């Protein structure tokens, strides 16, 4: 069992080591340079048409259900399925209190909350404290790398895209669940994305389909929000004082 895991570990540890080395020789500079812009814009155009032709129609068709208790249930179950991976990342980040907090949340919602369908933990104030492997790499000192747009999954950075792969491989639940439960789990996670698309439909539409340059808008929103999530020091140019600098030039 141990040996069967080691090739995976070996494959993983090399790029991780590489990233950390990269990070060590250059402290993560927050830069808005966009080295992959051309490729990103092509993937973004694909994602836009995917949304327009498939995801948005499905989300709109199920909006009534998605905004009701069924939609909330789907989001709850999916959120609960992500929990073991979130807890693992909190441990890797050395955030013991958050790991314990999330473990209580997972335990309560899985038992009293009937497999995560309900969120009694949230009602008690144990709301989710999110984490992922991209964030873990950040804690370990890795810079975010270039901005990338992934097919279907949307905006990310080099570091966070790599983190997504690691999260999928490391997911403790993925090692426990067997078919057909594992398919159900994937189904719930995908369905919860559609529910989110239905719930925040106007916001997504305004960014993805109504912006003058939706790519530029999405890049700004994603990067600012992600840096905020990770508690990164805000770059000086994010403090806009329109009185000192009325034209922002």
């Amino acid at each position, binding site marked *: 069992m141990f040996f069967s895991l080691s090739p995976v570990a070996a494959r993983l540890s090399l790029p991780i080591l590489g990233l950390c080395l990269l990070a060590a020789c250059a402290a993560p500079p927050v830069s808005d340079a966009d080295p992959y812009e051309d490729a990103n814009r092509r993937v973004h155009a694909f994602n836009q048409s995917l949304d327009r032709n498939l995801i948005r129609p499905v989300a709109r068709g199920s909006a009534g259900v998605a905004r009701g208790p069924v939609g909330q249930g789907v989001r709850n179950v999916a959120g609960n399925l992500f929990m073991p991976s979130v807890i693992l990342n909190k441990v890797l980040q050395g955030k013991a209190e958050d790991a314990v907090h999330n473990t209580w949340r997972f335990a309560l919602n899985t038992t009293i909350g009937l497999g995560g369908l309900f969120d009694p933990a949230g009602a008690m104030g144990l*709301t989710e404290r999110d984490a992922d492997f991209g964030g873990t790499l950040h804690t370990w000192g890795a810079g975010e790398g270039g901005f990338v747009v992934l097919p279907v999954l949307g905006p990310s950075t080099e570091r966070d895209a790599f983190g997504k792969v690691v999260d999928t491989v490391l997911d403790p639940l993925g090692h426990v669940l067997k078919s057909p439960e594992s398919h159900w789990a994937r189904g719930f996670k995908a369905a919860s994305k559609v529910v989110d698309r239905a719930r925040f439909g106007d*916001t997504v539409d305004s960014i993805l389909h109504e912006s003058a340059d939706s790519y530029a808008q999405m890049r700004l929103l994603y990067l600012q929000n992600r840096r905020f999530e990770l508690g990164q020091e805000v770059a000086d140019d994010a*403090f806009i004082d329109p009185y000192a600098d*009325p034209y*922002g030039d």
Partner: protein
Amino acid sequence: MTRSSTRMQTLTATDPRRRALLAGGAVYAGMLLTGTPVMAFTVDQARALIDRAVGEVNGTINSGKPEAAMLKDFEGIFTRYADVPTIARSALGPAARSASASQLATFTEAFRVYIARKYGRRFREFIGGQIEVTGAQPLKSYYEVVSVAKLRGQSPFDLRWHVSDRSGRQLFFNIIIEGVNMLAAERTEIGSMLDRRRGDINALTADLRSI
């Protein structure tokens, strides 16, 4: 020409006028040092302003009014509490420099309606929720008022307001929603719109009205 009848006097250390002069001098020195006037209002006043604005937003999102009426309410709140001319000029960026006064005025009015409706729609998604001011602190040359939006079935999220009195009135000039900066987002958006219209501010203004 008559000679002034008042004799020059030396102000003694205990003279209240001396202290007044010194205090005035200190304020003046403060202005020279920072290049900006010393903030005339306090962090508590900034917080009280946003408390009132948030109170009105909460009233609107829980009023059960139809969308059009809610957007009208948000427009009123935005107009009363935000420094619209400053936000509009900053969003327009360097192009505002070369715009005529009347171009800038009509752009500002179109922008006021556009931005109030756009962010009004975002706030409308908080229906059934509650925003609560949790703190305030000086930040750079202005104040940051921190609030949290508590929504049903969702983790609470962070909403910050940047407040200044540099326009002559105490108003907010920026909102930061979960780290996303409204001024930065609008600078990008208005900049892209202007590029598409080859820098034509009049065309941009006309199109803003139709959004």
